[in-house]
C-alpha cells in the first residue's frame, strides 16, 4: 500500500500545569518580558501525549510534532489515515509530500580579487562600517539558522572567531533527531558565514558577536524530501531556547503549491512562521531564486506578512538581480520587503568562494537586523521589522522587485532626509515627462578643436568653427524608479531606468497608459484624456514625485 506523509491537527490540548521557567531558556523569558508578551499562552502548551500515542499506533512512522500548530506529521497509508480521521480528537488531516530547496545557485568561482575587496560589496551595500563604528555587531541577539547542514563549520577558519567566543550555543538535526549538524550539507556553512564569518580578519557578515542556534531541517540534493514539519519544529525549538531571530534561506514552491497558495496562511511553514512572529521572533527568509523561472514569484514562508522577506540586488548595479523572486503575494501584499546583495563571498566546505542567491542576501540582512535590534533593544520584533523597512534606500517608495530597497545603516543614526529638488514630474503634450535638476550635470571645458567623449573618454577632433558645450553627468549608479498604480492602489507596471539626459519622457509609461490599456476616450477636440485616479509615482535620489491623473 502506498505511503504518504500527512499533517494531523488535533482539536484541543488538555495540559493544565505549565511552568514557563522550567521549560524555556532564561533568554526566552527575558525576550518575552522585553516584548511585552505573556510568559505562557495556549500555543506553548505541549501536544497531548495520549493523542500522539494513539496516532503513532495507527501510523507507519511519525515525523515532528508542533506545540504551536497542535499537531504531528505521520507517514501512513490511505487506509490507516482513514481510521485516524475518525478519531474524536483529530481536527484535520492534510497531505504533505512537499519538497523544499535552498535558495542558492552557482558554484564556487576562482579567487581573483584582493582580500578586502572580496567582502566589500556585501558589507558596504548595507553601510556595515557605520554599524561597526557604533559598536554594533549583533551582541546580545540570539539567532537560529535553519538549513540543510553546516559541514565543517566546527573547524572552518571563517568561524574561528565564533568558536573562540563560544557563539554557537546549541545545535540539533531535526531529520535524524541528533545534535550533530556539522555534516550533510554546505549550504548552511555558507549562510552562517554571511552572518558571522570572517575572512582574513575582514567581516563577511554584520553580526559576528551574535549567539547562534543551528538547526538542520532540510536534505540537500534530493527531490524526495518533506521538511515543513521539521522547519516548524525547529522554530519552536529556537523560541524555546531563547532565539530572537530566525534566518531561513529555505522555501517551498511548485512541488506542493501554486502561486495562489502564497498567501501567508496555506502552507504549514507560513502558519508556523506566523506563530513564531506572534512569539516575538523576527524571521528573515529568502524571497527565492525563481525570478527567471516559470514560478517567478516569492516562495513560502516568505509569503507570510510577518516574515521579513529578503530579495537580492546586483552589487555591480544596485538594482534587482535577475533570479531574485518577485512579489506581490496573490492578495497583492508587498513582497519582498527589502533587498541585500545577491552575490556574496562565503565559506565553502574547504575554503572560500563567491556564491549567488537570495540564500545569501538573507543572512546579510539577518546580521543587519541583529545590529539594529542591538541598538534598539527594547523594541518588539515587528517594531524592528518596520524600522528596517523604513531604512530602505527607496523608502517610502517600493515595488515588487526591490521592496523598500537596500536598508542603510546611516538611517539608523541620521534621519532619512528627502531630496525635494532632485527632479520634477509633469504631463506635457500627453507625455509623462521627467526633468532632472541641473545640479546633476556639470559643464567641462574643452580644448579648442578637441573634446573628450563622455562615455569612452576618447579624444575627438571637432571643426574649429563649431562650438560645442559638453556636459558631464553625475549619475553613475543612480537609477530612476517609476511605477503606475491603479485606483485600487495596485502596481500595474514598474520600471528601473538609467538616466542619461536632463529631460526625458517616460515613454514606456505613455505607451502603457495610452496604447496598451486604451483606458481613456478621446475628447471632442480629439485629444487623449488620461483616466482619473491612476497615478504615476517616481523615485530618484531620495526624492519622490507623484502625478495623479
Amino acid at each position: 500500500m502506498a505511503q504518504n506523509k500527512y499533517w494531523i491537527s488535533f482539536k484541543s490540548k488538555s495540559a493544565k500545569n505549565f511552568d514557563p521557567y522550567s521549560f524555556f531558556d532564561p533568554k526566552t523569558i527575558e525576550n518575552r518580558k522585553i516584548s511585552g508578551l505573556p510568559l505562557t499562552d495556549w500555543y506553548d502548551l505541549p501536544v497531548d501525549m495520549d493523542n500522539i500515542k494513539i496516532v503513532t499506533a495507527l501510523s507507519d512512522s511519525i515525523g515532528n510534532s508542533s506545540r504551536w500548530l497542535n499537531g504531528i506529521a505521520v507517514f501512513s497509508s490511505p487506509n490507516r489515515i482513514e481510521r485516524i480521521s475518525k478519531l474524536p480528537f483529530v481536527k484535520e488531516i492534510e497531505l504533505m509530500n512537499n519538497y523544499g530547496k535552498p535558495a542558492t545557485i552557482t558554484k564556487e568561482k576562482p579567487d581573483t580579487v584582493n582580500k578586502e575587496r572580496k567582502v566589500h560589496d556585501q558589507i558596504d551595500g548595507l553601510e556595515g562600517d557605520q554599524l561597526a563604528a557604533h559598536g554594533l555587531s549583533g551582541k546580545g541577539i540570539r539567532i537560529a539558522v535553519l538549513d540543510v547542514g553546516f559541514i565543517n563549520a566546527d573547524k572552518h577558519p571563517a568561524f574561528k572567531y565564533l568558536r573562540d567566543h563560544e557563539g554557537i550555543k546549541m545545535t540539533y538535526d531535526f531529520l535524524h533527531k541528533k545534535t550533530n549538524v556539522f555534516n550533510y550539507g554546505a549550504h548552511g556553512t555558507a549562510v552562517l558565514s554571511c552572518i558571522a564569518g570572517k575572512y582574513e580578519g575582514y567581516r563577511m557578515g554584520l553580526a559576528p558577536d551574535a549567539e547562534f542556534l543551528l538547526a538542520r531541517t532540510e536534505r540537500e540534493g534530493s527531490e524526495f524530501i518533506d521538511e515543513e514539519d521539521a522547519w516548524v519544529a525547529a522554530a519552536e525549538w529556537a523560541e524555546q531556547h531563547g532565539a530572537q531571530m530566525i534566518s531561513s534561506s529555505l522555501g517551498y514552491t511548485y512541488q506542493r503549491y501554486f502561486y495562489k497558495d502564497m498567501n501567508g496562511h496555506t502552507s504549514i511553514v507560513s502558519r508556523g512562521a506566523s506563530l513564531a512572529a506572534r512569539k516575538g521572533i523576527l524571521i528573515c527568509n529568502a524571497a527565492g531564486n525563481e525570478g527567471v523561472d516559470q514560478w517567478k514569484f516569492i516562495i513560502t514562508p516568505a509569503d507570510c506578512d510577518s516574515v521579513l522577506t529578503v530579495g537580492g540586488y546586483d552589487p555591480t548595479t544596485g538594482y534587482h538581480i535577475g533570479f531574485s523572486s518577485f512579489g506581490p503575494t496573490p492578495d497583492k501584499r508587498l513582497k519582498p520587503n527589502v533587498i541585500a546583495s545577491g552575490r556574496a563571498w562565503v565559506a565553502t566546505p574547504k575554503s572560500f568562494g563567491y556564491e549567488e542567491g537570495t540564500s545569501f542576501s538573507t543572512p546579510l540582512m539577518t546580521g543587519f537586523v541583529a545590529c539594529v535590534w542591538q541598538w534598539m533593544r527594547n523594541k518588539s520584533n515587528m517594531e524592528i521589522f518596520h524600522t528596517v523597512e523604513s531604512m530602505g534606500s527607496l523608502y517610502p517608495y517600493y515595488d515588487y522587485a526591490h521592496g523598500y530597497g537596500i536598508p542603510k545603516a546611516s538611517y539608523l543614526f541620521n534621519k532619512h532626509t528627502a531630496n525635494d529638488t532632485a527632479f520634477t514630474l509633469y504631463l506635457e503634450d500627453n507625455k509623462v515627462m521627467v526633468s532632472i535638476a541641473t545640479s546633476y550635470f556639470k559643464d567641462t571645458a574643452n580644448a579648442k578643436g578637441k573634446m573628450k567623449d563622455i562615455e569612452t573618454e576618447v579624444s575627438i577632433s571637432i571643426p574649429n568653427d563649431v562650438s560645442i558645450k559638453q556636459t558631464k553627468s553625475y549619475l553613475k549608479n543612480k537609477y530612476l524608479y517609476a511605477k503606475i498604480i491603479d485606483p485600487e492602489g495596485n502596481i500595474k507596471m514598474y520600471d528601473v531606468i538609467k538616466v542619461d539626459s536632463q529631460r526625458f519622457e517616460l515613454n514606456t509609461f505613455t505607451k502603457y497608459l495610452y496604447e496598451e490599456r486604451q483606458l481613456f476616450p478621446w475628447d471632442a477636440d480629439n485629444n487623449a484624456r488620461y483616466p482619473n485616479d491612476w497615478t504615476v509615482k517616481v523615485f530618484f535620489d531620495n526624492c519622490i514625485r507623484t502625478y495623479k491623473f
Partner: protein
Amino acid sequence: MFSVTKGQQVMMEEKPDQGVNTKFGPNQKYFIQFTLGAGSLIGTGNSKLSINDIRSNDFNAGFKFKRKVSGLFSIWLQPEFHYAAFNINQSDSKSLTDSLFGGNTHIKHQNERFATEALALNVFVRINFDPNRGNFLGYYLDLGARGDLNIGREYLIVDNKPDGSVATTNYTGVPYMNTLGYNAFAKIGINWLAVTFNYRLSSLFKSQYNFPEPPVYTVGLEINPYSH
C-alpha cells in the same frame, strides 16, 4: 550626448499581472512541452527474420499538449516525428528481402535494415499518483495509442566491396511495407523523465507478401524538459 529630450534606457520592466498565469502550467488546465525519446526493440524475432534488437532503435521528437481533467487525470495529444529501424541479423537462415530481387536469399551484408519515418499522433490519458501536488508534473502513468503515417518506408543494405569500398543501397517507398501503423503504449514518469513501453499492434509488412514480422515490443526513455 547632446540631446535634451530622448527615450531612456529601461534597465528593468515588470507588469505584475502578466506574471500570473492560472491556466497554463504543468499542473494547470493547459500545458505544452517538448518531448524527445529513444527506444530499442525487445526480442530477436524468428529465424526467417532475425532482428538485432540492440541495433534496432527508434527515436521520436515532438510536442505534448495537455488538457487537465482533474488532479488525477489529464488528456494529452502528442504529435511527433517518429523514426524506427529494424536491423536484420545476417544469419544463415534469414530468408527475407533478397528474394524480392531474385537474388540469393542468404546473402550476408555488412548492414541490412528496414526503417520507417512517420508522422505520428499519440493520444493518451495520464493518471497522476499525487493529485494534490503543486505546479509540476509529479509521478504518473500514461496509457494511450499512437497512429503512424509512414511517409518514409525504406530498405537499406550496406556491403563492403573487395576493393575496400562500401556500397550502400537504399530502397525508398518500398511497396511491401504498410503506410499506416498503430501502437499501444504505457509510460511511467517522474516529472520530466519517463520509461516507455510500446506494443506495435499493426503489421510492418503488407499481408499479401507473407513476410515474417519483427518483434512488436519496444522499451525506451523519454525526456520532457520544462521550466518550473
